[in-house]
């Protein structure tokens, strides 16, 4: 890649500002509340944008572009079905309990509502998950920097071996994220997430604009692509008729309900931003504010994937990247007989230089390069620096959110609860600071683990999905049924995870072999796609947790009602809304959002 002085200048400016914000915030970090909870003093719009940015890590940006190239506009279900309804629910119904209970983290809420063992289970699994997610982010970023040869020219000039690029990228990202969180805590992380939000918009909007103009606008894009690519609901009645391989029920129930509510309503990574606001009403508004840009994000991150497919391959620039630096012409020549995928290169084995094919002899495509290749294809030097900065920013803030969540859960839920009670606030503040260092070191460890065992990350993500899948049932019953007991919640949660593992072990996507993809106990059912299997795993885990929690709660002794005020819906006074203008009331905003999301689904049906 040919980066000029101007591209570097823009990237370096961004890093200067990121660290500068950290330094500027340092003097406000006086108590542990300032550090872990941003002093509970941030405005709702900032937290709202951070709420979606925390989730918009680079895997999300790269992954959504890739999936747009692979499946088309149907990918937007992950936003319109798989996020908006859950964000509305957490804002209107759940936030009063998180914020009002004075819990400092999601695991702490579980302790207030249930008991110590439920909290400990959730805190431990969550802490491990955040460290690995941050490590995966770091690994993905270093890989991308290596693939795009961003540092090549600089390294050649310094006479450093090019193999060091990977280590260099890991080192730099670790130092920067460490720096700004160590200095400014959660405030720093949230500020940088908002900065990243605007950079993504600033970097991707012109990309979509120029790209669409090049392929002849929306109508040109539609005519260049198969019908299913531009219609999100086509063939949804039968899993075999649509590219996702899922039918509408699994989509609505598995993705729209279990997985999405489990993530947006219980994951402390996003909830921590809402809990940093100054009032309860601001906290309720955070997910609702976040839902508005979230609704339109498919046009920024999925559309480039579609444009990448529609961009004629013959116009490919020699500078476009293929994996591991194999020359583009060679990779393209080999695919002469294969279907035209525009800017998407085929996967190439880095050691032999041969194109990787599936069992039917068709080449495999590297969809993850959809977004990077779009940047290289459409952006001249100057704005290219901006586009790359946006991409790097999303990697960093993806890491940062995980690190601050790890800090809080470790310090409050594990260290203060089980290791060192009743220390001074200054002690916990410094524990939090140093936990940042430990968190980053663990992330680096996880990133290198991923380089040596590629399957380890897939396996871990699978295990996390087992732990997360049943989670929402516990929160739903805990907040809306006063009879739910701690024993019920704990046993339900653990059994839900076990159900997820068993379901995975007994089923298999049609084109996969037993092993990491499932069927490692026996194959009693086959799903048309891996996605369908994931959704049904979640549905089974949720249902098992729900049923067992109810049964065991009925058999065990509930807590006295006065203890549950502020923690359970029916026993808590409803939030006061009469002083707000009608349009600022959470329920009114919620209805507006639902109308908008239905309209979007109708337009792109």
């Amino acid at each position, binding site marked *: 890649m040919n980066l000029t002085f*101007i591209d570097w*200048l*823009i990237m370096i*400016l*961004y890093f200067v*500002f990121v660290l*500068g*914000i950290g330094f*500027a*915030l340092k003097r*406000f970090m006086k108590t542990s509340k300032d550090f872990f909870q*941003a*002093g509970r*003093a*941030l405005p709702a719009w*900032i937290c709202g944008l951070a709420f979606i940015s925390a989730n918009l890590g680079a895997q999300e940006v790269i992954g959504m572009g890739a999936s747009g190239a692979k499946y088309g506009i149907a990918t937007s279900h992950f936003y319109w079905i798989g996020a908006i309804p859950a964000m509305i629910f957490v804002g209107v119904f759940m936030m*009063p309990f998180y914020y*009002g*209970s*004075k*819990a400092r983290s999601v695991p702490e809420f579980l302790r*207030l509502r249930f008991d110590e063992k439920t909290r400990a289970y959730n805190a431990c699994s969550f802490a491990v998950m955040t460290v690995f997610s941050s490590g995966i982010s770091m690994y993905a970023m270093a890989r991308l920097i290596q693939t795009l040869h961003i540092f090549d020219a600089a390294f050649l000039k310094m006479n450093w071996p090019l193999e060091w690029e990977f280590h260099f990228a890991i080192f730099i990202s670790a130092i920067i994220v460490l720096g700004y969180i160590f200095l400014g805590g959660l*405030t720093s992380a949230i*500020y940088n997430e*908002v*900065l990243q939000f*605007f950079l993504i918009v*600033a970097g991707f909007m*012109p990309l979509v604009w*120029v790209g669409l*103009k*090049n392929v002849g606008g929306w109508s040109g894009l539609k005519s260049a692509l198969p019908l299913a690519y531009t219609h999100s609901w086509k063939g949804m009645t039968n899993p075999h008729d649509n590219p996702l391989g899922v039918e509408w029920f699994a989509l609505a129930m598995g993705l729209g309900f279990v997985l999405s509510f489990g993530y947006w309503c219980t994951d402390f990574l996003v909830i921590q931003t809402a809990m940093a606001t100054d*009032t*309860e*009403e601001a906290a309720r508004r955070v997910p609702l504010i976040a839902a508005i840009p979230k609704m339109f994000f498919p046009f920024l991150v999925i559309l480039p994937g579609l444009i990448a497919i529609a961009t004629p391959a013959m116009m490919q*620039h020699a500078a476009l990247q293929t994996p591991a630096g194999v020359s583009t012409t060679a990779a393209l020549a080999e695919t002469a007989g294969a279907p035209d995928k525009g800017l998407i290169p085929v996967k190439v084995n880095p050691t032999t230089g041969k194109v990787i094919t599936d069992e039917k002899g068709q080449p495999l495509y590297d969809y993850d390069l959809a977004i990077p290749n779009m940047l290289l*294809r*459409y*952006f*001249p*030097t*100057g*704005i290219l620096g*901006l586009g790359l900065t946006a991409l790097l920013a999303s990697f960093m803030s993806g890491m940062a959110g995980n690190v601050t969540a790890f800090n809080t859960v470790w310090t409050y839920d594990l260290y203060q609860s089980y290791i060192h009670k009743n220390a001074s606030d200054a002690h916990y503040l410094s524990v939090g600071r140093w936990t940042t260092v430990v968190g980053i070191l663990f992330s680096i460890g996880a990133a290198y683990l991923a380089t040596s065992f590629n399957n380890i990350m897939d396996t871990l993500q699978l295990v996390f999905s087992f732990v997360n899948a049943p989670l929402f049932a516990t929160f739903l019953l805990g907040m809306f049924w006063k009879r739910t007991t701690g024993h019920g919640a704990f046993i339900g949660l653990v059994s839900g995870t076990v159900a997820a593992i068993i379901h995975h072990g007994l089923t298999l996507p049609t084109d996969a072999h037993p092993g990491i993809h499932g069927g490692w106990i026996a194959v009693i059912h086959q799903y048309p796609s891996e996605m369908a299997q994931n959704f049904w795993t979640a549905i089974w885990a949720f249902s098992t947790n729900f049923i067992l929690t109810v049964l065991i709660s009925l058999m065990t002794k509930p807590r006295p009602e*006065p*203890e*549950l*005020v*502020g*923690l359970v819906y029916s026993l*808590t*006074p409803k*939030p*006061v809304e009469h*002083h707000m203008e009608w349009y600022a009331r959470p329920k009114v905003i919620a209805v507006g959002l639902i109308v908008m999301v239905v309209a979007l689904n109708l337009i792109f049906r």
Partner: protein
Amino acid sequence: MNLDLRIPMGLLFTIVGGIMTLYGLFTRGSTIYERSAGMNINLIWGLVMLIFGVTMYTLGRRADKRPRAPVVEGATRPLGHGHGH
């Protein structure tokens, strides 16, 4: 929190937008714009970012000088007495 995010963010966008605008002005008619469908995207988008940055910065500076609105009675409920510790 005493640092309004709009101030540093406005500054960053103003500087980056300014750099892109200037670069766009100096490279008018250059062949590098063949990629971006013939548009001088540096100039156009640089100006957009410049305007956004200046607006954010101004808003941030203005809000810095204004006192905050008082909290409404009853909007934040006294909860969380129930748990036993």
